[in-house]
């Protein structure tokens, strides 16, 4: 297959096209200008995952920008999946960053709405939401496929210049656990329609509800139109499990997991075991093309989870 048949040519796109069961992870940039934190996290992930999401002011807390951290990750031998939210930028800033990201070698972009600023460390900030995530997806797709900006202008430096469009492999999020449940699949379909090439779901604990959601996804054939990666966040402590269950909107955490974390003498080990079990179960679900491991500030355990779940070795990058 020649490279020109790919939309972006990213390794993630190639592995997905080759039908590999994908493993992505998350790297949260630091809340300071300390480069060592990114290096350490990259060391934990390199070789164990196919690509790494670089979060964008995650939970509305100021961190190293996803664009810069994506470039650093790339230089450290990882394939970055740059995340971009609609909270902090308008369409001008977004398109400028997409052009810049492409120039820096970034080829995967996940388009997100973004957490409301009230959850972060600058709750008095003004939010933007010029576009929503679905409009962002369409804009990135039109930049790539139609070679036009959001305003309709062609992506070229002057009237006589050649077109130089940024070619991104486009990701989006889906939350099977938020409401209204039946509309969740319609919203996923809108994202696919807008141009999403792959989906990473909100972290899954309620496997039954995820199964029901996947049934609806398959009924509409959406798993054939985009690759769906099942999101997972390993539980570290009983407190974290309870917090996820009680305080995080859009996450359903069954009591059986709480009980297991409560009973276990080594909750961390138990949390990893639960995660590995979930991966095994998710691999059996038709339409699940891989997993997305959001080990929040626990990147050091990704290798162990991937090994326990029997997902090693990872496929070598395709040329």
């Amino acid at each position, binding site marked *: 297959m020649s490279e020109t048949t790919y939309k972006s040519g990213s390794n993630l796109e190639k592995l997905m096209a080759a039908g590999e069961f994908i493993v992505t992870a998350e790297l949260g940039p630091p809340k300071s200008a300390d480069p060592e934190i990114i290096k350490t996290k990259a060391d934990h992930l390199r070789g164990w995952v196919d690509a790494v999401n670089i979060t964008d002011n995650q939970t509305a807390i100021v961190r190293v920008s996803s664009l810069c951290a994506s470039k650093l990750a790339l230089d450290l031998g990882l394939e970055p999946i740059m995340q971009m939210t609609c909270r902090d930028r308008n369409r001008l800033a977004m398109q400028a960053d997409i052009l810049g990201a492409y120039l820096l070698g970034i080829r995967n972009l996940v388009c997100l709405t973004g957490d409301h600023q009230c959850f972060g460390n600058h709750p008095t900030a003004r939010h933007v939401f010029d576009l929503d995530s679905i409009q962002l997806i369409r804009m990135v797709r039109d930049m790539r496929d139609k070679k036009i900006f959001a305003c309709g202008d062609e992506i070229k430096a002057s009237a006589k210049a050649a077109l130089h469009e940024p070619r991104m492999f486009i990701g989006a999020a889906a939350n099977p656990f*938020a409401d209204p449940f039946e509309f969740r699949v319609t*919203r996923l379909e809108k994202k696919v329609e807008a141009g999403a090439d792959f989906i990473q779901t909100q972290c899954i604990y309620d496997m039954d509800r995820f199964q029901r959601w996947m049934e609806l996804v398959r009924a509409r054939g959406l798993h054939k139109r985009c690759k769906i990666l099942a999101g997972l966040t390993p539980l570290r402590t009983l407190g974290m499990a309870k917090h996820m269950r009680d305080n995080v909107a859009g996450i359903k955490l069954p009591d059986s997991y709480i009980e297991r974390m409560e009973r276990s003498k080594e909750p961390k080990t138990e949390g990893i075991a639960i995660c590995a079990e979930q991966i095994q179960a998710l691999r059996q679900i038709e339409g699940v093309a891989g997993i997305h491991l959001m080990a929040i500030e626990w990147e050091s355990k990704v290798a162990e989870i991937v090994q326990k779940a029997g997902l090693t070795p990872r496929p070598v990058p395709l040329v």
Partner: protein
Amino acid sequence: MIIAEQKPMDEIMGLLQGHRKVLVLGCGTCVTVCLAGGEREVATLTSVLRLGGKLEAVEQTIERQCDAEFFESVREVATACDAILSLACGVGVQLAARLFGDKPVYPALNTKFMGTNEAAGKWAENCLACGDCQLGVFGGVCPVTRCAKSLSNGPCGGSEDGRCEVDPDNIECGWQLIHDRLKALGKLDALTAVAAPRDWSKTHCGGPRRLTREDVAQDS
């Protein structure tokens, strides 16, 4: 209507520091209905200001502070005061400042939003005056106002049991409302198409807005 509430007393007293005679000016329209700046509130505030005996406060309420003509009735009394404390919304305060160019004009209220009266003492925001009303598409529920992120293609992942994660106790998920309403009308299909980016130039993003209607302008 425009919903407002009175500023904390300390802040009002701070604004009036150094003044001896103040016109406390109420407005007979929106802020009267929402019990923030009408005749009754003017009377109450004036008596509080008079406590301590240092400040002379004159009370007046006009029909509307968003129309210059209604200020004529208080021009004389205003001239005799050294400041005006307006209990109108921000619109009225600004017009008062424009009409009484040599007089400090202070707001006694914080203007909150355009909304409905939900129950006794409860008001809710319903319109952001975006200038491009799409209520016909969204089942009569405004996504710009009722969604905390003003999403055109919601709901986001923070919608749970019909509530918005920003403040589940007090905010309904606008997109759940849109969904339910269109479902009841048998028009859920309206939500399957991707809604295009909004034209924010019709909002305040395009600068302070003005409206001129030639038909009316010519008649008057």
